């Protein structure tokens, strides 16, 4: 595994919506080696509080040396990050973890919930290298519209069809993203790529099992290192006989590897 430590200059900061930011940083090595689904570990302050780095999916790479992360302000780490300005530097490690496996001859269903959509744009771009637009479908769910409006646009700009559903009905239909899955037509082999909160992923995996669709999910856990060293990011294996480690065996895992507790 090739990983790098870069002091990356922030070149752009976009406030996409309330508490939702997109940061573009110059990190040539990490950008070059990143694959869709992988993540980086970001130091959010110079001091020791908060102590640990924070994990973020690689949202996009561009221009060969630019890396984007797309994040939501949750607690003190993301708050500090949101307070940083272009010109300042952030200390980034990565890329880490397993990327999505690009299925062949499939209908690719990208299912994202809220900020969980972060890694899907990068995935879509990669899939489009070998697949036609009509073999990709993007299903996005969120609590409220402005959480995903902007990313939805980015998918649309790639020529993709995007189905949107929100809990409050403020954008697209009203409901949960899993509602959109029940309407999928099974003309082809299906590969589902799911990213979002754990309960959503569990529901997604349930539907995929029922329909015998293949499914990869990107899991989130607390992480101290991202380096497979602390063993903090354990998730119960499907056979209940041990653990997978999200930073090394994941974050992208086949739904059948995990015990959906």
């Amino acid at each position: 595994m090739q990983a790098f430590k870069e002091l990356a200059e922030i070149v752009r900061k976009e406030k996409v919506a309330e508490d939702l930011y997109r940061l573009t940083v110059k990190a040539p090595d990490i950008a070059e080696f990143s694959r869709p689904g992988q993540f980086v570990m970001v130091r959010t302050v110079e001091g020791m509080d908060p102590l640990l780095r924070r994990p973020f999916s690689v949202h996009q790479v561009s221009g060969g040396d630019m890396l984007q992360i797309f994040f939501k302000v949750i607690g003190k780490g993301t708050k500090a990050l949101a307070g940083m300005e272009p010109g300042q530097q952030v200390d980034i490690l990565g890329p880490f973890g397993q990327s999505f496996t690009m299925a062949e001859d499939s209908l690719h269903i990208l299912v994202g919930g809220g900020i969980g959509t972060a890694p899907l744009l990068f995935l879509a771009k990669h899939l489009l290298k070998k697949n036609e637009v009509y073999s990709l479908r993007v299903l996005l769910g969120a609590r409220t519209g402005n959480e995903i409006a902007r990313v939805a646009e980015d998918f649309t700009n790639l020529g993709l069809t995007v189905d949107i559903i929100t809990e409050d009905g403020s954008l697209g239909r009203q409901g949960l993203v899993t509602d959109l899955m029940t309407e999928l037509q099974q003309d082809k082999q299906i590969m589902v790529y799911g990213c979002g909160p754990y309960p959503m992923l569990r529901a997604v995996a349930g539907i995929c099992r029922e329909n015998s669709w293949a499914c990869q999910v990107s899991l989130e856990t607390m992480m101290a290192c991202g380096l497979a060293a602390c063993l903090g990011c354990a998730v119960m294996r499907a056979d209940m006989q041990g653990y997978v480690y999200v930073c090394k065996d994941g974050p992208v895992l086949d739904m059948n590897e995990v015990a959906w507790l």
Partner: protein
Amino acid sequence: MAVESPKMNVDIGSLRLSNPVMTASGTFGYGEEFSSLVNLHRLGAIIVKGISLLPRQGNPPQRIAETACGLLNAIGLANVGLERFFSEKLPFFDAIETPLIVNILGDTVEEYQELAARLNDEERIAAIEVNISCPNVKQGGVAFGTDPEMAHKVTHAVCQHFNRPVIVKLSPNVTDISLIARAVEDGGADAVSLINTILAMAIDIESCRPKLANVFGGLSGPAIKPVALRMVWQTAESVSIPVIGIGGISSPEDAIEFLLAGAKAVQVGTANFINPRAAEEIIQGIESYMVKKGFASIEEMIGRARKS
């Protein structure tokens, strides 16, 4: 009187280290994990994740939580077990010259003893570090590390079966750590290392449950440094074997404090997670400090703050 190339080497018993900075057990995986980020050859020694005779799956999640300047962990001593350590992890060290120290743990004196005997056959292993913070299952689960007698016993057993340096790693969860240190010295230890993590906990106020599935965990990181430094000071006063300082060391300044307090070497733990290059930068920083201050060797620095 600036010194151009201060002597960075130190000896822990018969083990010669090129510099006094090691990576602490459980915070540096099996070494390989850091190989693309760290120049492993620069390190004084690498101490791998604690090994037991049989593999252990560890505790259920959550296993970690963050606290103010600290990390709480209840990994539950998850490890691949001795066999897989030999077959899967040890070969990586063929290509690396840095001394390899194996941290061991068991539930009974016999387990520690068997681990020592088995590791003794592997020449690549330069020393053993005995983690005595584990509960003694035969004696009601009280940790070996909180009772001087049990600490003595396990040390003695390991030393009988391992012919290279034995380091015993002390738990800070005691009234008087120097008592345990002396017991361990009597038991034949070549060095003591301290501190292991401090027993602690955190509660999630949303769910009203402890954050760690195991309820209690071990606190590490910068938060515990002042406590660790005090214990190293007390221990260095009480034993004549080398003391290896551990606890929150994140910068050259931190490491220097421990050396001045009487530690002969240090271990970098949690800091590896925040900055994988921490140990390397600490080695560099100690050297610069020595040049600036005119210390010709690490030996000269050790315990300097104790002499007024």
